[in-house]
């Protein structure tokens, strides 16, 4: 087999990584561990998107596969053993070099490294750890490192990975165990969950150690995240959301990424070959936010779906409000924070501002509108000093009135 030069490898192994939605470099704390003098890098905590691809996704990390060879045969994956894509493999040193080259030019915040499984889960994990180790120990790299963790790998390797990486992730892949059985017969939902559970216990332990001693070594300080593929196997949004609630509550994930199933070249016949459902993905993220930041129970979100599917024309909060009109209008001048968070058009920030302002003055509709994202959406759901929505809440046209026109994707 002809050897590929590094540019070719980069092309193949970046291409292989483009189906993974998770990319954020946020949530990490600056590394204080002693590093080599002459080291490079810092972490800001919020993450910086250094570029954007025309698919609207932020580029903050150099996202690569160490190799796209794989001994598994998951049908939804472009790297599956039976796929006829071109294969390549980086050496750990090559990845290290690319990361440092890019970092020095301020193209990236760090590295997000994943891999196809070669030889065995342990061998693959060892190679991933090796890259992180070289970066930290040989080069004093203090930027962000996110390693994909192989669920079956030896706990000792996971321990090492956590020492070097800021974040670890294990992909749940598919929201339903039955889909996993069908599409990825070699992966078991049980193994994946067990690995996440183990990771959470270790993260809790590290947090405890840190509380007792500042010098305790960090273990994946930016926590763990996961990715779920949406739309590969006819699952409902309610399945996905139930799965997310389970993941957040059980494994304290920092993020669940939803990745609309994207057609892959040479895809297997048993999978849909069509455009990824991007709007659906967006609605799932919104529903996810309601659960994480707005105090909604997943049951409530799911209660506002149509047979388990989120409305593509309405954001889920609005959909919920329209089905729970008896709870409105809410008086912006007296309502609790929890109640205000349920008002369509108000975000967490606007709610906090309202609470600050109303200690000093009684708010009018105009004042609220200034803080809201959309005054039009807001109006039927609140009362203010000079405003009561009157009968509009009962109107059958309410849904139509507050719906925003569907966004057109404009061409370039």
């Amino acid at each position, binding site marked *: 087999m002809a050897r590929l030069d590094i*540019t070719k490898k*980069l*092309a193949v192994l*970046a291409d292989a990584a483009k*189906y993974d939605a998770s990319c954020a470099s946020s949530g990490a704390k600056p590394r204080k561990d002693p590093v080599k*003098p002459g*080291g*490079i890098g810092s972490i*800001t905590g919020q993450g910086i*998107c*250094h570029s954007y*691809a*025309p*698919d*609207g*996704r*932020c580029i903050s990390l*150099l996202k690569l596969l160490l190799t796209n060879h794989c001994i*598994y*045969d998951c049908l939804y994956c472009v790297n599956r*053993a*039976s*796929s*006829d894509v071109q294969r390549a493999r980086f050496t750990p040193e090559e990845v290290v070099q*690319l990361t440092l080259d*890019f970092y*020095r*030019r*301020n193209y990236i915040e760090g590295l997000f490294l994943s891999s196809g499984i070669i030889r065995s889960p342990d061998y693959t994990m060892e190679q991933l750890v090796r890259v992180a180790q070289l970066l930290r120990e040989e080069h*004093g790299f203090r930027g962000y490192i996110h390693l994909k963790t192989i669920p079956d790998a030896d706990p000792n390797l996971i321990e090492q990975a956590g020492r070097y990486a800021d974040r670890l992730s294990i992909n749940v892949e598919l929201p339903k165990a039955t889909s996993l059985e069908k599409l990825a017969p*070699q992966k078991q939902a049980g193994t994946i969950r*067990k690995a996440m*559970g*183990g990771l959470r*216990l270790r993260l809790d332990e590290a947090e405890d150690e840190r509380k007792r001693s500042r010098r305790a070594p960090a273990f994946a300080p930016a926590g763990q995240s996961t990715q779920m593929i949406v739309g590969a196997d006819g699952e409902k949004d309610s399945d996905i959301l139930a799965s997310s609630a389970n993941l957040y*509550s*059980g494994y*304290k994930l920092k993020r669940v990424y939803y990745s*609309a199933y*994207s*057609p892959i*070249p040479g*895809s*297997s*016949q048993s999978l849909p070959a*069509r*455009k*990824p459902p*991007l709007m659906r993905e967006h609605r799932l993220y919104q529903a996810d936010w309601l659960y*994480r930041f707005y105090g909604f129970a997943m049951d409530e979100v799911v209660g506002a779906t149509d047979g388990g599917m989120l409305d593509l024309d309405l954001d889920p909060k609005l959909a919920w409000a329209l089905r729970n009109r008896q709870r409105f209008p809410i008086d912006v001048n007296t309502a609790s924070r929890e109640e205000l968070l349920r008002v369509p058009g108000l975000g967490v920030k606007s709610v906090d501002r309202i609470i600050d*302002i109303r*200690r*000093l003055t009684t*708010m009018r509709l*105009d*004042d609220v509108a200034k*803080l809201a994202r959309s005054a039009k959406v807001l109006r039927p759901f609140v009362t203010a000093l000079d405003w009561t929505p009157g009968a509009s809440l009962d109107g059958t046209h309410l849904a139509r009135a507050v719906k925003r026109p569907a966004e057109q*994707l*404009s061409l*370039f």
Partner: protein
Amino acid sequence: MREVVLRAPDDYEGWRDAARALAEAGVPAEAVVWRAAADAPDLFVSPPEEAPSGDRRALRVPRRFVDLAELVACHRDPERFAFLYRLLCRLQDEPRLLDITTDEDVFRIEMMAKSVRRDRHKMTAFVRFKEVLVEGAEPAYLAWFEPEHHILALTAPFFVERFKAMLWTIVTPEARASWDGSALHFGPGGSRDEVPAEDATEEHWRTYYVNIFNPARLKVDAMKREMPVKYWKNLPEAQLIAPLVRSAGTSEARMVATPQKTVPKRAAAIVARADEARAERDAPPTAMGNNGLEALKREALACTRCDLHQFATQTVFGEGLSTADLVFVGEQPGDKEDLAGKPFIGPAGALFDRALGEAGIDRTRAYVTNAVKHFKFEPRGKRRIHKKPGVGEINACHHWLEEELKILRPRLTIALGASAIRSLTGQSASVLSVRGTVLSSALAGPVFVTVHPSFILRLPDEASQTTEFGRFVADLRHAKARAAGEDSTPAATGTLL
């Protein structure tokens, strides 16, 4: 009219000192004109007067104002210093003003601060260094950047922190910042030509950019919102955007329409080998330890007799000595047990261990299990709230307990709480009514009843916790004595309600 001339367009400290003096002296906002050295001078201003004297008042401003002012001082709005001074004066009479976000001035300062923050953020994102190699010298890194506001000095420390070991210079039209490895220097602005047009790494970067883009997800608006076109001219990857967008449709169609032509010959062999390796690893150990309990445990890992397996992490099977005299049966695993796959290790487990210790029972010589082997819970935010297993689940899971007990054949089984009673006897009873009694179970023989340790944990006050803990330990002692055949007092025989 007074005029204050500041040293530089981002001279926050100069503004602060002057503003403090003026405000303390009660000089109204309309009576001051502010000018930064690089701004065009205001022709209608009289020469500065002497510092005013008279009554001084102590100034007070909220911390938030200080933070906002520091940012807004860098705004390119020529009115910024005057505006800040006016707000400072207003704050003396309206100390809570900043909380009223709907006020015109507050709204404006927030918007200005936001704009500066965004500009700073974009600078940290879109500065692109080009490497300059000179024989015999360390590589130097140069960047050209055009900020919207006067943010260079405020933002340079970010680059120092990040690129401490590099020698770098960022040139902007108005000023430059250079790091020489130990100190930061500021100098005059420059032009784009000072910075090389190319860098050897750019080819790699563009290769990455092209390939990480998924043409099936084209969202040009989202990209432009976050990466405004005005920055593109300095981004080496930006020249690729137009061709990528133009060809996206075709590339996507190709992805969708290209069915797999050939399956590589080696694929089947690779997969078969991987499957073999896994099967080998997962095979039950040939020497069957623990009288078949191991095999039972393995079998239970895949149990789907009830719905609980769908949400829990794993089956938590019993653990301990296969020849134990005492078998403890609890309710179900909790959060921690579920994560670790071991029974009785969470808070209730810790209390249980402590009680066992006081009762003189060696946990490693006993066997500990649960009536239901999967954790039942309700997700609530970042926590899982324990939910009592229902009769259906207890019945479904009874199979495993039965098989365990068949192998274990203990002298005495201890039911911890109602779910255990239910599973062992098939009947419902209130724990407190049969506590301390021995029930008979067709399955397990004699069953001694006591409370579940989490019952003690849930008691509201410490005093009753201590009392109940004592009673629990007494129960355990009693059970131990009975199992050892030392107990002469005939235990009351319980009746079920």
